[in-house]
Structure formats: structure tokens, C-alpha cells
């Protein structure tokens, strides 16, 4: 993974540089006009967050049952990146909501699920920071529980009320919109990979430093 870092960085930078041009040239959505452009970075940020959440959950399970320290380092990196992308989605979402539904926070199903997942992973980071010794295991359990909680959240919140654009919106996009959209998704997923990798390197250096201190003593 490390040796692909520089080429991947170059590709991602180029994609992010080109994305605004693609988005600007994409056709206007009939009913929303300019606001619909939020969609090109709002939806991809959720794609990136959910991917990072599942990376964190699976790596946490690996850490808890196999005891691999690398898995724990990947999990904490993924959790931080998930919180970052989640925050991005939670900021861009209300901007769209204000314009299209007239309210900042609609309490609809998907919005609520996203908020709770974000809270779960902020809790993950809080436990790791303030939980004291042994908190990695605790955090790993929280990540696993958080992952398995997704279907229940989905069901319970969905029965509540839904006004969010359905997932079926994506395949039915007007001509000229899917290209820039999937381009943005790919760019965001690449960015997520790079950020996790970068964070992982930091975590590995920290572990190496700890090992050196232990040797010294």
C-alpha cells in the first residue's frame, strides 16, 4: 500500500482539480437549479463515511478476535476519517435541506441514521482518548456493535418518517449527471483511502516509538 501512495496522491489531486469543471458543466437539475450541485459532494462524502465505518468495524473484529495490532491501527485511522467525512455530510446536508424542504434539519430517516452513526464514532474516538489503559478493546467492541446497529437503526428510524431523496434517485439521474457524480464518488473514495493510509503511517510510527521507549527501559 505504501508504495502506491505517491501515484494515488497524484491521481486524487488531478481528480479533485478536474471535478469542479465537470460539476460546472453538468446540466442543471430541473427543480433545484444551482443547489443540486451540492449533491456532487454531499452524496460522495456519505459513500466515503460508510466505507470507512465498515473498514473500522471489520478491522475491530479482527483485532478483538485475532489480536492483530495492525488491525487496531487501521480501525482507529478509519474511525477518524469516518468522523471527518460524516461531518462533511452533516454540514452539506442542511444546506440542501434549507433550500429544497425549507428547513435545516428534517429529522428524516437517513439524516437521523447518519447523525447517530456519527455520534457512535465520535464516542469511539472519545473512548480511545479518555478511556485509559485497555480502551482499544472497548473501542473495538463499540465499533462492532455500531456496525451491527446499522440495520436496526435503518428499520426503526425508517418507520418513523422519510422525506429524503430515495436511493433510487441515483440510477435515474438525468443525462449528463451520472458521469460527474460517479467521478466525484471515485475521487472521494480515493481521498478516503489516502487519508486512512496517512493516518495509519502516523499510528505505526507512534507504535514504533513506544516499542523503542520500552526497549530503553
Amino acid at each position, binding site marked *: 500500500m505504501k508504495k502506491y501512495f505517491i501515484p494515488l496522491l497524484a491521481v486524487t489531486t488531478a481528480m479533485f482539480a478536474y471535478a469542479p469543471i465537470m460539476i460546472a458543466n453538468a446540466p442543471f437539475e430541473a427543480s433545484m437549479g444551482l443547489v443540486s450541485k451540492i449533491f456532487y459532494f454531499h452524496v460522495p462524502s456519505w459513500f466515503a463515511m460508510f466505507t470507512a465505518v465498515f473498514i473500522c468495524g471489520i478491522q475491530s473484529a479482527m483485532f*478483538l*478476535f485475532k489480536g492483530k495490532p495492525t488491525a487496531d491501527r487501521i480501525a482507529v485511522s478509519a474511525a477518524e476519517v469516518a468522523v471527518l467525512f460524516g461531518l462533511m455530510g452533516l454540514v452539506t446536508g442542511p444546506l440542501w435541506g434549507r433550500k429544497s424542504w425549507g428547513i435545516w434539519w428534517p429529522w428524516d430517516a437517513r439524516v437521523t441514521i447518519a447523525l447517530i452513526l456519527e455520534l457512535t464514532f465520535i*464516542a469511539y474516538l472519545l473512548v480511545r482518548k479518555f478511556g*485509559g489503559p485497555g480502551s482499544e478493546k472497548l473501542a473495538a467492541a*463499540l465499533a462492532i*456493535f455500531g456496525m451491527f446497529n446499522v440495520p436496526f437503526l435503518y428499520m*426503526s*428510524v425508517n418507520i418513523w418518517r422519510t422525506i429524503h431523496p430515495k436511493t433510487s434517485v441515483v440510477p435515474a439521474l438525468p443525462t449528463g449527471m451520472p458521469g460527474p457524480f460517479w467521478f466525484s464518488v471515485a475521487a472521494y473514495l480515493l481521498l478516503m483511502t489516502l487519508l486512512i493510509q496517512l493516518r495509519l503511517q502516523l499510528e505505526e510510527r507512534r507504535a514504533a516509538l513506544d516499542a523503542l521507549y520500552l526497549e530503553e527501559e
Partner: protein
Amino acid sequence: MFAKVALLVLRKDVVIEAKSFEMFSTTLFFAVSCVLVFAFALVRDGTIVADAAAGILWIAIAFAGTLALGRTFERERYAETLRALLLAPAPRAAIYVGKLLGIVLLLAVAEAALVPLVTLLFSAPLFARPLLLAGLLLAGTVGFAAVGTLFAAMLVRSRTRDVMLPILLYPITVPVIIAGVRGTAALLEASPDEPVARMWIALLAAFDVVFITLALWTFEPLMTE
């Protein structure tokens, strides 16, 4: 062997509790205080905002449950008996089940006092469908306690356990709160909506099965030092 160990742990907790009434009295008192605090916020001109009774009941259960969960392992920590429990030649998961049964029992007794109180104070027809309400309360309490017992056990060694327990517990138990509140609200309608209440009980039962399985599965590696 498994059931025997679980029942022994439960019996031990019940005997200690029956002698001191410490957890029961504090939990119940706290639950009643919660109900009163919410009453001040939600009662206008002597009548309560529609649907609020269901919310008050479940918030009181969740808050009081957190308090009880924090205490259940505190006793083991003071007496250094948790290590003894874990060293015992018994399946660790059975210890978890015993502790879980203890919490569910304690909360069930507290709920038995809380439900009449809410009925009385807010003239909410909670006893219109007693069996469905009991099903909701039981399934919800088991789900809440299943997650909570595991987290409380893990946090025993942590310095910041009092702060961390609610932080970890509430995001994960959101489905329990939603299902409990909506299910109870369906029963409080002028003509109780039974199918809706049954659907929420089914969701809670599925939640219980998944999370108890997960807890049994993770308890062993989590409690190993």
C-alpha cells in the same frame, strides 16, 4: 453447567441486593425524579402534551437503567471480587448472563412501580393492553441491559467509567428507545393500535437476539487481560 453458573451469579446478586436494597432504592428514586422533572417541562394547565407519557416512561427507564448498570460492577470492583469471578472455572459468558439477568430483574421490579405511577400522574391508559405493554417493556429492557451489561463490564477497569457508560450506551440503544416509545405511544391511542405495537415488539426481539449473541461472542476476549 452454563445455566447453573448464570443462576448462581444471579442468586448472589439478588441475595446481596435483598440485604441492602441499595441499588433498588436508588434506581427507583432516580426514576421517579426523572418523571417529575419531565412533568414540569411537559405538563401545561394540568394536562400533558400528547404522546409525552410514552417518552417520559422510556426516558426514566433508560436513565435509571444507566445508573443501575454503573452500580452492578462497582460492587465487584470494591471487593476485588471481579477477578475471583473471572478466575472461577466457569464459562465467562455465563457470568455475563448472570449479571444480565440480575439487571433485567432489578429494572423489571422498578418498572412495575414506574408504570402505575405514570398512569396515575398523567392519566395515561397504560393498562389498556397489559400483555402488549409487558412485552414491549421486557423486550426493550433486555435489549438495553444486554448492551449495557457488556459495556459496564468492560469499563470496570477504566478510570472514566462513569462518564463513558452513557456515551457508549446511548448511540447504540437508539433503536430500543425509538421502538419502546413508538410502541407505547401506539398503545396509548384512543383505540390502541395493536399491529403497530406487535411490530415494534418483533423489532425489539430481533435486536435482543442479535445483541445478546454479539455480547456473548465478545465478552470472553474483552474480559481477558
